[in-house]
């Protein structure tokens, strides 16, 4: 008889407490002080505290809690700390990007910060989730506030439409994942990720059951919705374009990171690599190719970034495509490579969005690409930051961070004997350059006869851009930092 009484390791839960506490604090400050500056400051402080807390807890090594026997529902190790700290910092960055939007007055500040903090809580727990239920609840906590955030701008029809699209698609995805989890439980009797992995590896007859196949497919495709992988990607461009710019930035960084982490967790611990590998290889190949090809045709800034981030999701998933062929070492390398690429990507993507926010009028949407024509001539520093981020997303020097990200993926694929996928990643990088280069060159093109709207980049956004760029430069010269964190 297994004891049902559990000891709870509150230290392991500290980052989650901090994140949830931030949400409560924001609510109270908004209620009691009712001053926007104080509310934003509370949210920012909470995000910093969460990041610091996550880093501090991870120093003591891996901590497990909510255990039944050897299976634990909450495992806070190095990777969980990385995800938690990253999500918290991304929230901080998005708060900075929201400066002009919140000052604009059409968005309620208290609600905005509260929802963002709630979403952060989901992201913090997500990395540590040890069973399918915790995982799905964490993903939902991450996503649920976003339905509202996307449509939060008063009187914005596009925002409301985007929110409904996102809501419907996301709920369907969650249902799929839940159904998959339930079927997996029915087939194996386990819910803990590691136990599932052991069960499926030991009892190979389980793999022959159609039920198992259906369950694995449902879980993987439900999570593929979250990362906006083809063929579950169509919501992303519409949602990004309708959402306020900072929320679009959050969707394409923190929310996407959450999806990747959830997918990594089930693929690495629970599901048999022989089954998921080929599926993910196909999904990755389709995702990067379709994303890149459609991005070529885009004329709106955020839609271009949205389609390009679909393509980037393909690069993130690509290393996992080699799972079926690789040995244990190469598999560990593939997980680390996927996470490392995601880290490089969110950094550059946040910088790109920061650049767009800075170069657009306060509270405006992304507009058309032509609205940014010649922007770098008017604002050399901000323009250079945006161009740097775009070049990095394309994966070229001088933005070495992006180059090393691509190199990491290609290396892991060739180490795992998936040469064709490596070649496809490489060729997609060429297609990607076509539109990133068009965007970046546009920033430096003569303004021509269009008279641009007078824009003064908000200082807080410029600071966010500067910090993100500086971080990208640092990890560009010392990519080993990211590789170590992702591998740990």
């Amino acid at each position, binding site marked *: 008889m297994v004891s049902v009484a559990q000891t709870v390791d509150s230290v392991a839960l500290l980052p989650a407490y901090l994140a949830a506490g931030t949400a409560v604090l924001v609510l109270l400050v908004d209620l009691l002080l009712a001053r926007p500056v104080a509310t934003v400051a509370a949210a920012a402080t909470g995000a910093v505290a969460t990041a610091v807390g996550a880093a501090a807890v991870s120093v003591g090594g891996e901590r497990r809690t909510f255990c039944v026997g050897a299976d634990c529902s909450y495992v806070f190790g190095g990777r969980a700390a990385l995800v938690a700290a990253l999500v918290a910092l991304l929230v901080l960055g998005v708060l900075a990007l929201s400066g002009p939007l919140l000052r604009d007055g059409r968005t309620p500040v208290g609600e905005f910060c509260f929802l963002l903090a709630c979403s952060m809580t989901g992201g913090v727990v997500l990395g540590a989730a040890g069973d399918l239920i915790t995982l799905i609840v964490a993903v939902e906590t991450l996503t649920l506030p976003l339905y509202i955030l996307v449509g939060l701008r008063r009187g914005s029809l596009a925002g409301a439409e985007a929110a409904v699209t996102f809501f419907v698609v996301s709920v369907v995805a969650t249902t799929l994942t839940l159904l998959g989890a339930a079927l997996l439980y029915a087939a194996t009797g386990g819910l803990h990720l590691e136990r599932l992995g052991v069960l499926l590896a030991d009892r190979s007859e389980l793999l022959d059951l159609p039920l198992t196949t259906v369950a694995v497919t449902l879980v993987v495709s439900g999570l593929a919705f979250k990362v906006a992988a083809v063929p579950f990607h169509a919501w992303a461009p519409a949602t990004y374009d309708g959402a306020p710019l900072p929320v679009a930035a959050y969707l394409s960084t923190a929310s996407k990171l959450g999806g990747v982490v959830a997918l990594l967790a089930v693929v690495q611990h629970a599901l048999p690599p022989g089954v998921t590998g080929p599926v993910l290889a196909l999904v990755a190949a389709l995702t990067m190719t379709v994303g890149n090809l459609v991005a070529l045709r885009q004329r709106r800034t955020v839609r271009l970034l949205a389609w390009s981030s679909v393509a980037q999701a393909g690069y993130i998933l690509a290393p996992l495509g080699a799972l079926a062929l690789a040995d244990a070492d190469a598999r560990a390398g593939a997980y680390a490579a996927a996470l490392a690429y995601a880290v490089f990507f969110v950094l550059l993507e946040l910088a790109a969005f920061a650049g767009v926010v800075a170069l657009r009028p306060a509270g405006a949407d992304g507009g058309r690409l032509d609205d940014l024509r010649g922007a770098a001539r008017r604002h050399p520093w901000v323009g250079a930051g945006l161009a740097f981020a775009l*070049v990095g997303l394309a994966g*070229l*020097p*001088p933005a*070495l961070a992006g*180059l*090393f990200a*691509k*190199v*990491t993926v*290609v*290396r892991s694929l*060739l*180490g795992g004997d998936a*040469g064709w996928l*490596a*070649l496809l990643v*490489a*060729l997609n*990088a*060429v297609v990607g*350059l*076509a539109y990133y*280069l*068009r965007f970046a*060159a546009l920033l*430096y093109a003569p303004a021509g006869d269009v008279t641009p709207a007078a824009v003064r980049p908000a200082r807080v956004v410029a600071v966010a851009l500067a910090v993100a760029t500086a971080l990208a430069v640092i990890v560009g010269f*010392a*990519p*080993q930092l990211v*590789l*170590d964190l992702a*591998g740990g």
Partner: protein
Amino acid sequence: MSLGQLLLVAVLAVPAVGALAVAATPRDRAARLVGVAAAALTLVAAVALVVGRDAGWVSYGTAAPAVRPWHAVDLPWVPGLDLRFHLGVDGISWPLVVLTALLTLLCCGYSLWRVPPGGSGRALVALLLVVEVGILGTFLALDLVLFFLFFEVVLLPMYAIIVGWGGDGTDPAAVAARRRAGRKFALYTLFGSVLLLVGVYVVVAAAGTADIVALTGGTGLPRSTQLAAFTLLALAFAVKSPLWPLHSWLPDAHTQAPTVGSVLLAGVLLKMGTYGLIRVAVGVAPEGARWAAPVLGVLAVAAILVGSLVCLAQTELKRLIAYSSVGHMGFVLLGVATLTATGIQAALIGNVAHGIVTGLLFFLAGAIKDRTHTGALRELSGLRETAPRLSGLLAFAAVASLGLPGLAGFWGEAFAVVAAVQTGGALWTTLAVLAALGGALTAAYLLRLLRRVTHGRPSTAVAGLRPGLAGAELAAWVPLVLLTLAVGLAPTLVLGVAEAPVAALVGVLR
């Protein structure tokens, strides 16, 4: 750190720091002066690399590795990606390093006098220096991943030079044309370098190391890996060199680029491809090279013939010179394809000669276009009547380019043919004959160029020219003229240092 290691690091650090300093200097002319100083220091450091080189080459034994750098720096950088900061210089890379440093200095000096319209001179000089860092790094890298990294560094700055300062005029059609040329250059070149990336990691995954010194000779790589790696690497370098039929980015890019851009593009950028082919593709996958040599040879000869025939039909000065590069690089690739000591030596000296002579030709073509505002051959004639010095220099450069004995162009082309004949067999003999025929065609189109441009009655565009040359122009051209003569009369300048490393390389090919 020894003096040699310091120099190696300085060769890369000086232009890199120089580029930053140029960008940070507020006044345009002062910034350009800083750039010239940085380029000059780089040249000094590059030339000085020859000092203190290992005399042990003479007592070279079979047990030693096939690449023995004179100086080497080897520091860890990113162990997780098998990337080490491993630089070295030997007789194969040194002439190219010096050529790069020299041409960059001449281009920076030329920019001191004249900045093409489109952007600030400061930014142009800074970009030239960044391009120099990339090219020098490629020649010096002794780590495959580092090699790839520097290979990529060149791409965007060169794109910016073409799009920012290139073309003629600001009317929408001209702007669109140079943007198209720039994009074509960037996408084509990236296509090549992503293949290089995959090829590099095919090798690294199989061998477990990215050290070129350890890898040269293909030690321990299975045949299938070598074939795959060589195919990928050769394709990558064929785009850069460029080898027919992957050359179509070149004429547009060269024609649209500003003078200094064309000089660097033709002078040294293309050499990254041929150098990579010798050092990386042939060195790391010799079995693959032997397997693919006939194909490479046929394509090289096709490039010679196609390049020459297209040149015969060209009507634009810069475009003609650009296409002539396709033919000349064909000779270089033919030399490499024979995989003999003679052939590789011919390729190396052909590389250097083409860099000097075509650099000079592009300088002269730029000067003619600046003066007459046209590059159309039918609008240019009788240059020797109004501008005899310019016309004389053009004749000199054209004659050097067609391979007159005693000038630099001769050795590479002649010995590439000789190497093909020596290789023997029906295929290689035929290739040698066809290449020689291509050499004759080269003479034909260059003489046609001279007849059109220098002889005849002065056209309206030419009639008003003044005969004088600016001091800055002379300063940029005279070193190239002298080098053309020097390499032509004493090829041992290049071959002397390259002999031992080439012998070592050919030694491991067997």
